[in-house]
């Protein structure tokens, strides 16, 4: 994992361990809690998203003396901390850090941990725990955090002695950020925070572990076999995913498609790894992805999957998905290969290293006839879907809002979407120019992700303009984080696309449950008044005529801003692959 930032706050300030001792010369033996602070500094941590409480208080006390070097952000709910850390990580490429108390503090993190494991987001969660002598006694605020988080984290560990701190924190950051990134949970007992280390603090970064050694550079034989398949293909097709962004392989991907002339499509989380205006980029995949990109997976003869995992939202019925083509799968996690699809040529390695290794072995090509097949479907989709979404008749539609936002921001914004129809519209209509510009909860589909994640993204990438695109339902899941945004004066731009419905569920009920609308209509609060209550300015846009001015106001406002846009209540998102159908059954209406 690299660092995506060109501008990094406070990173250089974290100078490691040597001159730390110089500042506090009288203390050579420190507590576990202070050892944690020094360890975080040694890992160049500049930001922590957290919330204090009983079992983590000794650590918060140590933090008091480190406020000048570590920016602790007090969230309003631990779930907010977890999504903020995810947003921070995905916008910056660095590991997000959460600090919370035991029991309810820890369980409130669980949704974010589950979200981070499935979307491969590097995160280190430090969780207070009761004194080690009380473990297993149902002590106040004792939850078996190891047990609860075991199935949903990449690694977890319980620290019960202060001497363990430097080594375990070093491992935590190494595991979270390397290979296929993911969340690590450190359960830190209160006594280990309070007790003094038995030796002076010393920190050594973890660079390898016996039992965990992700392969970065692929094996030569695998690369050669893949190259041969690619060179002999008549209708090759690249499907790329989040792995390209995680390994920072966007330039290599571009060079690869330009040399080979192979059309490429993105998964939802791969969005923005390729400039959407690139002639070899044909669109995105999956349930609400583009028309031709889905259908033509059935016509390709070689599929080159890069940093993607054949999620069922991409494959539809996986037994009917890619039955004719041979698959080359570039993937860092060996357990993903052949998990869903039989694979002719696995290439186990980092996306960037693998593409670099393949590059000299693949022939320059053009594939123009094959590429033109995508164009046919594109024009049909444009006629049937895009023109309808953007017809400008009747009530204002979500698609118009995102299209205008995209135009006005020149496709250069960082879009953090929540979950539902608005998420799909944001993915479809924003014209992404730069990498790391679409951040959403893909694998878990966590409603409430966007507001805290957008905040975290802005903290992690302060030079970017961050737009949170949120549904009226989602917003009410984590709206308390407006308080965090206000307190930190973080200029996040919030757009609520208000259709007064849990729109995505309503769409399914309309299409697949005979329009039996079962608990999907919302009586919404006054969102602007709520924002104002938190000290965040905003207004509501009710008509098409107000849209231009409203977006300008949002974009130009100096500080956080909330724009609520009233949109058509019963819009449906197309194209759509009905759940459980094969991708060739994709519908345009």
């Amino acid at each position, binding site marked *: 994992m690299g660092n995506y930032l060109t501008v990094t706050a406070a990173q250089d300030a974290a100078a490691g361990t040597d001159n730390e001792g110089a500042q506090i010369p009288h203390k050579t033996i420190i507590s576990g809690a202070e050892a944690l602070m020094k360890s975080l500094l040694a890992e160049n941590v500049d930001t922590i998203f957290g919330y204090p409480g009983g079992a983590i208080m000794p650590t918060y006390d140590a933090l008091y003396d480190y406020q000048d070097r570590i920016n602790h952000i007090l969230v309003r709910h631990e779930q907010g901390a977890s999504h903020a850390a995810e947003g921070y990580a995905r916008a910056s490429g660095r590991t997000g850090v959460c600090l919370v108390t035991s029991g309810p503090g820890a369980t409130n993190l669980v949704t974010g941990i589950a979200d981070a494991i499935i979307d491969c987001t590097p995160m280190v969660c430090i969780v207070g725990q009761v004194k080690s002598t009380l473990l297993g006694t149902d002590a106040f605020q004792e939850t078996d955090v*190891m*047990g609860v988080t*075991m*199935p949903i984290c*990449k*690694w*977890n560990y*319980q620290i019960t002695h202060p001497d363990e701190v430097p080594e375990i924190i070093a491992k935590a950051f190494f*595991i979270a950020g390397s290979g296929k990134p993911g969340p690590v949970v450190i359960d830190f007992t209160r006594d280990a925070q309070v007790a003094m280390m038995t030796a002076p603090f010393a920190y050594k970064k973890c660079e390898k*572990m*016996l*039992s*965990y*050694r992700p392969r970065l550079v692929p094996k030569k034989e695998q690369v050669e076999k893949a190259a041969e398949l690619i060179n002999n293909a008549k209708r090759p097709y690249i499907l790329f995913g989040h792995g390209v962004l995680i390994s920072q392989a966007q330039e290599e991907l571009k060079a690869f498609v330009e040399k080979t002339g192979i059309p490429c499509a993105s998964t939802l989380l791969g969005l923005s790894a390729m400039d959407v205006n690139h002639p070899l980029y044909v669109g995105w995949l999956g349930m609400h992805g583009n028309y031709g990109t889905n259908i033509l997976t059935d016509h390709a003869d070689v599929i080159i999957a890069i940093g993607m995992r054949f999620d069922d939202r991409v494959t539809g019925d996986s037994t009917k998905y890619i039955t004719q083509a041979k698959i080359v799968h570039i993937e860092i*996690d*060996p*357990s993903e*290969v*052949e*998990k869903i699809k039989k694979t002719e040529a696995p290439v186990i390695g980092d996306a960037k290293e693998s593409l670099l290794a393949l590059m000299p072995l693949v022939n320059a090509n053009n594939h123009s006839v094959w590429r033109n097949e995508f164009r046919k479907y594109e024009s049909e989709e444009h006629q049937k879907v895009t023109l309808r979404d953007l017809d400008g008749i009747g009530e204002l539609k979500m698609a118009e809002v995102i299209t205008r936002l995209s135009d006005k921001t020149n496709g250069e914004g960082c879009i953090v979407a929540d979950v539902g129809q608005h998420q799909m519209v944001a993915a479809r209509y924003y014209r992404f120019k730069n990498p790391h510009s679409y951040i959403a909860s893909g694998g878990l589909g966590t409603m409430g992700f966007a507001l805290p994640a957008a905040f975290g993204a802005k903290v992690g990438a302060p030079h970017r303009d961050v737009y949170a695109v949120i549904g009226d339902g989602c917003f009410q899941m984590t709206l308390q984080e407006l308080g965090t945004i206000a307190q930190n004066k973080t200029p996040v731009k919030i757009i609520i696309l208000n259709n007064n419905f849990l729109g995505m569920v309503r769409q399914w009920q309309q299409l697949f449950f005979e329009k039996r609308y079962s608990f999907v209509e919302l009586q919404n609060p006054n969102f602007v008044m709520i924002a104002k209550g938190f000290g965040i300015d905003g207004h509501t846009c009710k008509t098409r005529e107000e849209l231009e001015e409203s977006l300008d106001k949002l974009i130009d406002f100096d500080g956080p801003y909330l724009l609520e846009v009233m949109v058509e209540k019963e819009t449906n998102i197309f194209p759509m692959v009905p759940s459980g159908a094969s991708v060739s059954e994709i519908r345009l209406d």
Partner: protein
Amino acid sequence: MTNYTICVFTENTIGLLNKITIIFTRRRINIESLTVCETERKGVSRFTIVIKHEKRDEVEKIVRQIRRIVEVLAVFGYLDDEIVYNETALFKISTPMDAKPLDVEFINRHHKAWVTYWGLDYVVIEKAGSEKEIYDFFNYIKPQGILEFVRSGRIAVGRTPQGLVAYLPDADWEFNL
């Protein structure tokens, strides 16, 4: 249904058993037997897990999923003919009276089972072997009246000339000697 014996080599840390069994429960696979011990290498544990499954490729996926756990050093999945394996069973029976004497010689010679304890009121016989051999002996001894019967999980070594050394990552391993 085919038997698969999965051997997992791990670092010896708390909670690892959980991390491994979660993978089976999540896929609704019943574990037939599970045995854990430290190996000839200090700090390296060996799990021997037996499952029954219809599809080889599903078992291969499980093997890869287990490999993914951070503390796991190596994983192997074997069919029965790829390993030498054994189990041990203990039988507790009432000390035979004159009416039902115990043919210890026959037990030793024919069943390869040994009396490990002979007391005034009960006797413990140990029988090692395959599942089938153990159940053959079970049926043989049943008329004596079995007070308690316990069978261990399977332990197995691969039918290859290599030792573990060939598979574990390079390191300065300490040996348990």
